[in-house]
């Protein structure tokens, strides 16, 4: 029943995220014909500086369907929304209680704290897995409708990189949830961290270094076909460390 409870607790966050991502995926596919129409107009825009460079880049990427899907979906919409929901699903006190000081009902049950945490974490992982893969499969499924084709294999690769690397954000939110009793602080802090990292990545664009969002969007795979192994390993290590921290925290904490 702990699984059922965890599901009930995160149900709405998951369902809303799922609905948003499904709609977004379909919007991405069915919006392509319109984008093609606008391309000639866009390429003739002569703006200077950063904006101009970005417009040129976008135009260039949108030139191919594959490039368009990557820049719009895997590199942007899915990336941003999924990260947000990873933070959302991971936030919220593990032992959900009525008020900050209350003796939590869950802790009065004959279930070890670590088991409760484990089930909660696993439920979130399962939900985020669905959010990472199912909407993405819309792309190869629906592309034929607009006369395009997209490889299932590619979609799976991108989703996998997103899920594996992005789990670090989920684990961060979980870890923070074992420290704070409310929903907001873990959420705000995790989003804050994501924002800072994103901005940092933008600023250091020129450097060919890592950056978690680069790994999550599997940029190297898009550009050269090689998977970002180093990045995936590092993020897995980070995730494990944070999960371990959450586990240790929940064991020794007072309620």
């Amino acid at each position: 029943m702990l699984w059922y409870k965890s599901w009930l607790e995160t149900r709405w966050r998951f369902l809303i995220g799922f609905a948003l991502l499904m709609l977004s995926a379909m919007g991405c596919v069915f919006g392509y014909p319109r984008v093609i129409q606008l391309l000639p107009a866009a390429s003739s825009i002569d703006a200077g500086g950063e904006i101009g460079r970005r417009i040129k880049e976008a135009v260039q990427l949108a030139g191919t369907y594959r490039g368009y899907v990557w820049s719009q979906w895997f590199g942007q919409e899915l990336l941003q929304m999924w990260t947000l929901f990873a933070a959302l699903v991971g936030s919220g006190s593990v032992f959900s209680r009525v008020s900050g000081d209350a003796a939590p009902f869950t802790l009065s049950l004959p279930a070890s704290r670590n088991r409760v945490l484990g089930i909660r974490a696993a439920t979130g992982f399962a939900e985020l897995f669905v959010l990472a893969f199912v909407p993405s499969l819309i792309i190869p499924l629906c592309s034929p409708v607009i006369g395009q084709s997209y490889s299932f294999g590619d979609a799976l690769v991108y989703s996998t990189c997103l899920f594996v690397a992005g789990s670090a954000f989920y684990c961060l939110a979980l870890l923070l949830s074992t420290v704070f009793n409310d929903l907001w602080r873990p959420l705000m802090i995790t989003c804050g961290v994501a924002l800072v990292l994103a901005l940092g990545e933008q600023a250091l664009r020129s450097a060919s270094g890592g950056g978690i969002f680069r790994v999550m969007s599997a940029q190297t795979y898009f550009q050269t076909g090689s998977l970002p192994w180093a990045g995936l390993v590092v993020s897995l290590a980070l995730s494990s460390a944070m999960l371990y921290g959450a586990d240790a925290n929940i064991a020794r904490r007072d309620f």
Partner: protein
Amino acid sequence: MSEALVIEAADLRKEFDGVAALRGLTFQVPAGRICGFLGKNGAGKTTCIKVLLGMARPTSGQARVFGLPASDQTSSVEIRRRTGFVSEEKDLYDFMTVDEMIRFTRDFFPRWRNDLADRYLKSFELPRDRKVKALSRGMRTKLALLLALSRGAELLILDEPTSGLDPAASEEVLQALIGHVATEQMTVFFSSHQIAEVEQIADSVVIIDTGRAIVSGELDVLREQFRRIELVFDGEAPDVAFQAPGVQRVQRKGRVMTIVCSMGSDSVLDETRPLAPVSVQVAPVTLKEIFLGTIHKED
């Protein structure tokens, strides 16, 4: 006759952020008793209960429930398998319905008693399909009690079970408790502000003040030992320090001196005779007077 001790606290100490909540709390609760746990707000009642249930770890000292160490994680799970708990805030899952809460809780207890759950559902008139967050305070308490009583537990720990309830609901809760205790073999440990209700159903009492147990024992024995002595003097009541053991509190107001003592009145009376009081009256003492007479007054 040695009775099995269901709860044992030995010199428990607990600090939260530098504030000492428990300062050497020691008491025992033998099996089959209904033990009332009295104390002012902030005296350490909830902290003590949290330690017993493994929610908080003591800084030092030992707590045992069913003979098992409360601070050991594995033992604590076993303790909780045999204990029913109702927290002060009646913490439950807002997002579940009454029925879901029952099914959820039932899952954890192999000795769950469906017959009891059904009986209490009916007598408490709890609507199965209503979400917990839509329940009134009284119904939340009853649901929490139902979940604690139906799990076939040997020990019930209740933190302020009737707080926030109107007299009718309070009475219902106490009746359910008594009815349950009368048929099942169990021990009850409940903290309360309502001295009257402790007096009504408890057979032993622990009074906690600033993190220590200052009075503990069987209520009937305490009633026999505690006495209030009222002395009236011709002039102002003399300012004497009493040597007799057990003098808890001495109050002087004009010509009247009131002494609350905990070990019978004889030795105190011996000391008052030379003071030549005009009149002496010895009366039994209610639990409320025992409580007020032994706790620390805010100076």
